């Protein structure tokens, strides 16, 4: 079984009921293909970096799941068809995962940069970036 992670964005004007329906739908898709959902995390509304379908915010969901290799195509097919879903991405996390040992580890928190750490080293700004005329012979 492989471990995948799919993030998708649901249109922000869906009701809680709809969110629940979507949850159940994807649970069904995964278990129906002999998969297993490890985590289904609704991350809530976030501001989008760019507008999608004229929405400025979206409801983000992270789904961590195990399954055979053909499961992704099915999950993505369902994401594509559902009009309430604005965008998605699937990443493979691991091959050959043993489901039992995974339950023990659960979801490992991965350390990422905290705000204080990040403050130490701001990158140098690339000079000459303003407007046009970028890198006009400055290397």
């Amino acid at each position, binding site marked *: 079984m492989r471990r995948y992670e799919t993030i998708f964005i649901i249109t922000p004007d869906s009701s809680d009921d709809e969110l629940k329906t979507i949850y159940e739908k994807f649970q069904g898709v995964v278990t129906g293909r002999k998969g297993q959902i490890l985590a289904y995390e609704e991350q809530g509304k976030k501001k989008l970096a760019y507008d*999608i379908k004229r929405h400025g915010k979206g409801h*983000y969901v992270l789904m961590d799941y195990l399954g055979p290799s053909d499961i992704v195509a099915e999950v993505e097919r369902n994401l594509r068809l559902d009009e309430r879903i604005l*965008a*998605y991405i699937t990443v493979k996390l691991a091959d050959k995962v043993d489901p039992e040992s995974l339950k023990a580890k659960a979801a490992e928190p*991965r350390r*990422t940069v905290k705000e204080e750490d990040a403050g130490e080293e701001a990158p*140098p700004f690339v000079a000459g970036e303003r*407007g046009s005329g*970028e890198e006009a012979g400055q290397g």
Partner: protein
Amino acid sequence: MATKRRRRAFPRRKVCRFCADSALTIEYKDPKLLKYFITERGKIIPRRISGNCARHQREITLAVKRARQIALMPYTSTLPH
């Protein structure tokens, strides 16, 4: 004009941030980290400026591109003139 020698030493000879601290992971889900590696326009900062090693630069690039797909990072943002 004959060839001019551009003797501009890029200061970032330092060690790659991620090599130095092995606990830092690069995640496409983490715009707080990634935003330090893009310009104001949203472009990915080249390695000779960011100081990353080849491997981590590739990981950053991949992470930024993925984050762009789910609107966690912009593809482009306009600068005021």
